[in-house]
């Protein structure tokens, strides 16, 4: 993953524009699809890449997310919020992927026998993070449990409001507030545990 979009650039859409886009999408307007695709594709892809830590998986799931939008655009509610809708579909697809992989792994383990678990694969972001501080942050983020990681990605990186992230994760606002607080504390602890300016130890943590 060698190309990165500029940090902190979120292509958000104002509500009136979003409502108009949804209306056009409901009619199957290709132009509206292009606008939505251009605004959200990189964000959906980044979200999936950070969740899965694999570019190929993120590409497949992002593609499926967009095909879902196209197949269901006629059934969108007029007041649909596009970012939460897209992230919800992407998250559900990732959950299905994990379930399928777990099943495959368990079948494989039954056939071949147990073997030692390998090291966690390095996230594409870890490999290309621009500087040491970013790299440490990506390492710490990638090591978090999935539930913590996803709320930090949604709210902290992708810029969703906690209320929108609650919708995406299928939890209530209070549960989201607690998850976010817990995730933030976990991230801070992980960051403290990764030594700064010690490339050798960092390499070990990354590999």
């Amino acid at each position: 993953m060698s190309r990165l979009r500029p940090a902190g650039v979120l292509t958000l859409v104002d509500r009136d524009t979003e409502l108009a886009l949804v209306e056009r999408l409901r009619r199957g307007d290709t132009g509206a699809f292009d606008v939505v695709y251009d605004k959200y594709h990189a964000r959906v892809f980044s979200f999936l890449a950070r969740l899965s830590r694999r570019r190929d998986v993120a590409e497949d799931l992002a593609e499926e997310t967009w095909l879902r939008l196209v197949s269901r655009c006629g059934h969108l509610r007029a007041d649909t919020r596009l970012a939460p809708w897209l992230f919800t579909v992407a998250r559900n697809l990732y959950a299905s992927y994990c379930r399928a992989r777990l099943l495959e792994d368990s079948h494989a383990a039954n056939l071949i026998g147990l073997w030692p678990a390998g090291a966690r694969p390095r996230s594409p972001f870890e490999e290309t993070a621009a500087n040491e501080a970013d790299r440490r942050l990506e390492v710490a983020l990638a090591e978090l449990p999935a539930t913590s990681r996803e709320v930090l990605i949604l709210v902290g990186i992708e810029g969703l409001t906690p209320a929108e992230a609650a919708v995406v994760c299928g939890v209530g606002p209070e549960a989201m507030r607690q998850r976010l607080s817990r995730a933030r504390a976990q991230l801070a602890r992980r960051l403290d545990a990764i030594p700064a300016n010690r490339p050798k130890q960092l390499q070990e943590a990354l590999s």
Partner: protein
Amino acid sequence: MTEWSDDPLSVRLARLPGAVPDENHRARVRARCHAALERRRARAAATKAAARSGWHAELTAAALVAIYVLAVLGDALSAYGLIGTGG
């Protein structure tokens, strides 16, 4: 959630760069979605046309039935001498 947005860690997270998808992949997904939208439009148009042609057929059948009933009624009335045959 003011405490979150003011948090230095959240600021650092927000500044992390995002990934740019591969351009070929981006184009392929767009093309697949366009094709799916086109198929959807074609299906909708076909359904609409079928509904319209169905309506036309029903109207034509109703008109033919009405003409037939009127003709039978006319024949019956003239047979009983209730209306003139015109001859």
